[in-house]
């Protein structure tokens, strides 16, 4: 499997790796995937009172493309409003990372993780 330069860059230097306090009311946590499927993504956002994403962190168990997809979206989301972040589509991710067709589901997983994190945050308000 040949990886694109973008995937290798995110894989070698993943951005925003980490964990935030799930109990914090400002933090939304999205965990998607399953170990049995070979991929689990945890994406967390910290949202200001104005509804802007101030920080984003991820950890991913999965292939290089899944790691790169989650790393990329944490970069994108910072500074976005929840609505803007909610508009990120897997196609944006797969295009940016030049994912081959068999790796599209890794970007779908990242989109799902964003939605799950936003939903989790909203459910806490």
């Amino acid at each position: 499997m040949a990886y694109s330069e973008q995937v290798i860059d995110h894989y070698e230097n993943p951005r925003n790796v980490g964990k935030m306090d799930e109990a914090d009311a400002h933090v939304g946590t999205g965990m998607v995937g399953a170990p049995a499927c070979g991929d689990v993504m945890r994406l967390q956002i910290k949202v200001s009172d104005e509804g802007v994403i101030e920080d984003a962190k991820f950890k991913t168990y999965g292939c290089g493309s899944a790691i790169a997809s989650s790393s990329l979206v944490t970069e994108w989301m910072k500074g976005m409003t929840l609505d803007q972040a909610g508009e990120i589509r897997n196609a944006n991710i797969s295009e940016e990372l030049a994912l081959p067709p068999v790796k599209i589901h890794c970007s779908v997983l990242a989109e799902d993780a964003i939605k799950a994190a936003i939903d989790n945050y909203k459910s806490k308000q």
Partner: protein
Amino acid sequence: MKLPLYLDYSATTPVDPRVAKLMCDCLTQEGNFGNPASRSHVYGWQAEEAVENARRQVADLINADPREIVWTSGATESDNLAIKGVAHFYHKKGKHIITSKIEHKAVLDTCRQLEREGFEVTYLEPSTEGLISPEQVAEAMREDTILVSLMHVNNEIGVVTDIAAIGEITRAQKVLFHVDAAQSAGKIAIDVESAKVDLMSFSAHKVYGPKGIGALFVRRKPRVRLEAQMHGGGHERGMRSGTLATHQIVGMGAAFAIAQAEMESDNARIDALRQRLWDGVKDMEEVYMNGHATQRVSGNANISFNFVEGESLLMSLRELAVSSGSACTSASLEPSYVLRALGMNDELAHSSIRFSIGRFTTEADIDQAIEQSRNAVIKLRDLSPLWDMYKDGVDLDSVQWAAH
């Protein structure tokens, strides 16, 4: 480009330079290029002599009679010829075959085909250590069983089947016993006289010989009959037609002769290397060696690094040529059916790497493999939410996963 370090000897081996030299001598006009079946001139006679010499070399490694060796294109063809050949010849006696869940696809898919033709197949389940016991074989035996087919050494986990004990059972019941020895030839001693095996498959390219050539041992006493799968000029006593590939056959013979001469010293060295590799990684938490601890060949180390995913691990190990227990290339990731048959959970199966060590592996190679594996596992665990959860004491089996 610097090539990655080769640690995939179970997939294939480079041809030993001593073997390559002999093969080259059988190709050009100046060489031994004749058709071994040509009866009317010296070109044919010389080629035939080389082929028969190689046949003896292969037979010698397993203590067989050269007349019991049939050339094929590799272990896949040997497996097909043995299993379909027996099934089609003996179907009036019965239509039941016994094999296991951890056989190579060359056996499993052949059995599937026979099921479509109306045969019944029992797939034995291995123990968690990857072993099929003689008792399991005895219990699965029926009135209409005609064949038991089991591999000698498993290609993924390196465990060794007790073929001598199983051969006693099959012989007593007059059921034929086929053994796929692609991964054991040249690695452990084989004696078809003392082990009551009736058919045995071999491949040259796992033993520092060329790809595209193999052999099937077909016992003469008591005689085993096969229905040919390849029809034509009636070569190989009618069991496998097709002009014999002198250079390939000479290569296989030479490779098997070298294996016989050097097996002991190779094994001692390779065993020490495998131990060195295991010693270098086993102190990390949640690292497991798969397959039985002692009933195994020396070259195989199949290791699970829990909480890291196999494909990303392979990506980190780009400077090592190894193979993974699973390849997630689609939405439905398939962990290795062999590891799964051992009852291993999917996460652990996804996190396994097969290192296979061979004749040209050095201590420095192993040290490099250790360092890169450790670095990769540490890096990926830092990235892994599962590792976090494990460290926090979360039981992963109790989590409701949002499957996608």
